[in-house]
């Protein structure tokens, strides 16, 4: 699935990326926001994803944005990272990221 499709499917999304969870390297990214917090936040979050504990899902909340990292499966090396505007339907965005990541894994 292309990152442009991810951005279409996830409500309020502003940026998406695939990250190598072993190194924290951004493998591919797409950003449709000019807000520097989005691009800086995307890179910063990527850098902390290579932790020992390999969390399934991580959500970072700022006043204006939500940064969502979803591992498609416990064994996945790549993690899907999506930045959304912080809106009322936060849960819907998080759920959509999970659905998209799972669909990519099973494809």
């Amino acid at each position, binding site marked *: 699935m292309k990152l442009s499709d991810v951005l279409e499917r996830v409500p309020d999304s502003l940026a998406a990326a695939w990250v190598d969870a072993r190194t924290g390297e951004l493998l591919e990214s797409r950003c449709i926001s000019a807000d520097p917090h989005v691009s800086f936040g995307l890179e910063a979050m990527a850098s902390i994803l290579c932790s020992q504990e390999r*969390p399934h899902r991580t959500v970072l909340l*700022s006043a204006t944005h939500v940064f969502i990292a979803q591992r498609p499966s416990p064994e996945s090396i790549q993690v899907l990272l999506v930045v959304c505007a912080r809106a009322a339907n936060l*849960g819907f965005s998080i759920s959509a990221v999970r659905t998209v990541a799972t669909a990519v894994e099973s494809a």
Partner: protein
Amino acid sequence: MSPAHDYGACRNARPLPEGESTVVAAKRVLERAEAGGSGALVLQRKDSSLVGAILVERGRVCWAVCNDCPRRLSDMLVEESSSLTHAQVSEVVAECRRTHAPLGETLLSRGLVTQEALHRALLHHTCVSLDHLMRAESSAWTWAPHTQHSYSPMLTFSATEVLVGMSQQLDPERSAKAAAVLRATSTPKLRALALQRAAGGRVPIAHLGCEQLELSALIVISRQADELLSVASIADLRMAVLEMDDLSFAAWGQDAVRYVLLCEGKLAFNRLLAHVVALNIS
């Protein structure tokens, strides 16, 4: 545990490395115990004489003793239980020496103390002894495993309880402030933890419902919270929520303290996320 605390003078005390608290030192020593194992962490001087020991069963601290510590468990038991006298404690101690019965269980079975008072006194004594052990001039710690289990799990303590107890004794005001934040942000279905940065690592200073939290889990949570919030200034972050195998937790920072809410079970992540969004922490 009473907030006011008297350590008493520690004989042969040595200064700790600059800035290092006895709580950080105790955390390091407790890490030497075999995970989930039973045995004693023993501290000896260079001449092989015994300074003290920490007794551990199934990964939980039963008690600690330091020969340099002037505060006695019997004093603390009498302080915690208004109806108990020194004479009664001495009589039970003498009997336990004869029969090799555990002191705590014997006091309880005779109805001389309540379980709560005994728990408080044991924890207080363990924390004071640990503080003295960490300051004692000594050679090295060794781990001596054993297979006997004689302590009731109700009267043993997780590393988290012990480290929080030590923090409370060292700085009751700071711990009380952190505990107030935890009470204001947690719910009865969540567990909560406050971690303070100290030289050599973070230490727990307050908790709600974390009596069973093992040291290994405490270290993982502390490290994860630090990693997640390390980017806080870059992205103007307020809160991190994370889902691991069987545990979800939320973390945020305030006044050099990391606050953590823990939730387990089905839909833990969703419940925790809904809770922290409603908290609207700035």
